[in-house]
């Protein structure tokens, strides 16, 4: 009988009103690779952070090696032989590999012995697992794949028997990812237990022995990898949520309003986030971009709306180019009829400390309508705000209230009202209903469709597959920075789920 390395029993964890984990039960068998899949926000990382002592569960029990364990700090976890490789590396960038490895695990008040010990230990680990890395290299000079290897070495150096990896391939190239998997397999052969958190089904199928699926904070299923299929997992992961289909007629698509060609965007670390994508959005249609979060959608949105610099490619608005050098004036783009509802309404789309009416002009504050010379035309601003509050049923109906005091749904309506009421030719919407209550979702969807019916070009990016299917006239799926497929509104969940998991892309490439 295989012995359980870790058992989680009835784990609950809430952050404020958000229940990140509810009644989680999980058993991880020693010497196996156990995958945990789920969409972003499904609660995988929270669960693992509880196991690593970074957070405390509100209730529930953890057993390690059959013994009840109290894990209050990462130290407790380390002492129990649990190591973690975080999604965002916990490395000191200007330290050497050796310094990072011994940090917190120094054998002595002086470093000399610790360093000597770590050096020989690293050599041993290199021999045993093929974990090559120059111990004297500075972290920030290493490629991302090697930085991750240092994280693994850190855990092994501390005697980890159980290794948790949180989205380890998110920052890796396919070749680096393959190398990582070889290392993980080797670790398994040496008797280590590995927990792999990911949203990429291909990885799960390639490497795990067992897989558990999380959705919206709950553990929905655990399967033996051999006995399941990508299709089944995709369905479990995405789930069959109650679909709030909004009635809509056929799209009458007109001319091209927004044309994206060969757009490539890199993030601040130089990792390619958007990789040579091209598509059009026509007047009178809604184009939906589906994809698991973190596949380049955010960067694409920012580039199109002129906030982020693009490396190459072009974006045409009504046949005229948008400045992609990062020096674009978002105000000028608004004047040209491009409205943008950003994904992050808390830090970008709104200033939470502002009164509602002040947010109702953000980005349009320099329109003559709202100004009298250098002064704000307070009457005009508040009148417009009140009109929109009525029209969009924003509650409480008080334009002087601080925006932070509105619920998520009402905050989103404030942003949408602002952008839609400018009568833009093109509307770009990131996550239209993230953190929005059910009642408001339907309202927002109807509004978006009404925009389309007025002949606007609407581009919607959402990680909610239901939403994309409900709204879109055409669906594009983004994976790893590329558009991996285009489908009509009648595409099935399973079909899209596979695309989102990058499965077809892989097959097409081979």
């Amino acid at each position, binding site marked *: 009988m295989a012995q359980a390395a870790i058992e989680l029993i009835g784990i609950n964890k809430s*952050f*404020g*009103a958000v229940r990140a984990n509810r009644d989680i039960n999980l058993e991880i068998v020693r010497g196996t690779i156990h995958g945990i899949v789920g969409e972003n926000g499904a609660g995988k990382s929270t669960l693992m952070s509880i196991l690593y002592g970074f957070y405390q569960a509100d209730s529930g029990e953890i057993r390690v090696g059959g013994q009840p364990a109290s894990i209050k700090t990462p130290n407790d976890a380390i002492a129990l032989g649990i190591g973690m490789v975080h999604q965002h590396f916990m490395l000191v960038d200007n330290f050497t590999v050796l310094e990072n490895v011994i940090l917190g695990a120094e054998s002595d008040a002086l470093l000399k012995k610790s360093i000597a010990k770590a050096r020989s230990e690293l050599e041993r680990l290199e021999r045993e697992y093929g974990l090559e890395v120059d111990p004297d290299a500075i972290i920030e000079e290493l490629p991302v794949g090697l930085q991750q290897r240092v994280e693994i070495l850190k855990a092994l150096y501390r005697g980890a028997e159980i290794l948790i990896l949180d989205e380890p391939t998110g920052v890796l190239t396919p070749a680096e990812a393959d190398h990582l998997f070889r290392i993980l397999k080797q670790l398994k052969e040496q008797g280590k237990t590995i927990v792999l958190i990911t949203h990429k089904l291909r990885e799960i199928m390639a490497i795990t022995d067992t897989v558990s699926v999380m959705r919206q904070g709950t553990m929905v299923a655990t399967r033996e990898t051999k006995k399941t299929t990508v299709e089944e997992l995709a369905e479990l992961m995405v789930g069959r949520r109650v679909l709030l289909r909004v009635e809509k007629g056929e799209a009458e698509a007109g001319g091209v309003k927004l044309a994206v060609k060969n757009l490539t965007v890199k993030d601040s670390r130089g990792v390619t986030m958007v990789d040579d994508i091209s598509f059009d959005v026509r007047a009178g249609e809604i184009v939906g971009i589906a994809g698991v979060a973190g596949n380049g959608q955010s960067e694409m949105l920012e580039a199109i*709306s002129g*906030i982020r610099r693009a490396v190459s490619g072009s974006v045409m608005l009504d046949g005229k180019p948008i400045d992609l050098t990062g020096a674009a*004036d*978002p*105000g*000028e783009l*608004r004047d040209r009829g491009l409205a*943008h509802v*950003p994904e*992050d309404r808390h*830090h*970008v*789309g*709104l*200033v*939470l*400390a*502002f009164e509602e009416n*002040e947010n109702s*002009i*953000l*980005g349009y*504050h*320099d329109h003559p309508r709202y*100004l009298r010379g*250098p*002064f*704000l035309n*307070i009457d005009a601003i508040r009148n417009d705000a009140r009109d929109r509050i009525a029209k969009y049923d924003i509650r409480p109906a008080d334009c002087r209230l*601080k925006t*932070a*005091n509105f619920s998520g749904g009402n905050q989103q309506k404030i942003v949408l009202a602002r952008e839609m009421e400018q009568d833009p030719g093109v509307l770009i919407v990131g996550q239209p209903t993230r953190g929005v209550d059910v009642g408001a979702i339907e309202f927002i969807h109807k509004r978006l469709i009404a925009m389309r019916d007025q002949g606007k070009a609407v581009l919607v990016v959402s990680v909610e597959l239901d939403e994309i299917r409900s709204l879109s006239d055409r669906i594009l799926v983004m994976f790893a920075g590329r558009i991996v497929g285009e489908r009509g509104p009648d595409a099935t969940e399973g079909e899209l789920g596979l695309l989102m998991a990058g499965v077809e892309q892989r097959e097409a490439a081979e």
Partner: protein
Amino acid sequence: MSTPYAKLPAWADYVLIPLINLFVAFVVAGFVVILVGENPLRAAVVLVEGAFGRGQGIAFTLFYATTFIFSGLSVAVAAHCGLFNIGGEGQGYIAGLGIGIVCLAFDSVLPWWLTFPLAIIAAAAMGALWALIPAYLQAKRGSHIVITTIMFNFIAASVMVYALVGFLKPANSMAPQTRTFLDGAQLPKLNWVIELFGAKIRSAPFNISFLLALAMAFLVWVLIWRTRLGYEMRTYGHSSKAARYAGISETRIIIVAMMISGALAGMMALNPTMGDQHNVALEFVSGAGFVGIAVALMGRLHPVGIVLAAILFGMLYQGGAELAFEMPAISRDMIVIIQGLVILFAGALEHMFRPYVQALFASLSPRSVGMEAIKGKGA
């Protein structure tokens, strides 16, 4: 300086918490008084009586408050744009150069009401110029504005010594200060306003720059809450990402906000030079620029709060002088301690008492404050 905590009623936020912070600052200051062997309660009585007991005291209180209104507004304008201008001292000091030149050039030919506007322009321009360089370096080269403005305080001090010794002082004088300004550069007193209420004033330097300070407080209010520029400054101050999204130029807004802040700091030099000493002397600012930090924090960055806080500090300065006279064990430097304590409790420790106040409010009316707020997990 956003708060990660949930909301309280506005009056608790803007009145109750500052008062609690102030109260704690005074309690700690009271311990210092005990340490020197005096009775803190009696000291408080002497302080308040000294500041408001007689017309003379009121006039001095308002004279000190005048300078602090300017320096408090200066800190607040920058803070609304998310910038910490710690260089008000230097910006005010260097403004003395502009004032000195204008006054020496025109005091014999123009009446005060023509010299004054010229001096205001000169003071504001010099202050703004002295803030421009740190602002530019912050916006374009990413140099930390706190450090550069501190450095500019010291550079200003050297420039002023050089200017005073080099060309502003009369050739036949040893003292590093300008000659006494003639009537054309002396601001009229406002003491008669207080005398209208029946008080008697022997002589006090309370002058019309107080009215300029009040006007500036009003204009700052207009600027921050009623103009497009103020709107952009506040947007940037709360979230640079939102400002980017809204098409607000980072470079421009940093430079403009700092120059306005510097201009206000520059104007604080008018009161002690043209209003009181009638010359420009070494170290005439004497820390008023730093008092502005305490005033702005205490006044919660709102012009009304700043005027009130400035009067409070004016009172401390005037009452402190009386206190030093009445109780020899307590020197005027007591005010500096209180100032420091106010900055500590109203600034760095501003959230220390908030959870308790929130818990109190929650227990009084559980629905007005979410339980979440008490755990401090609002963000």
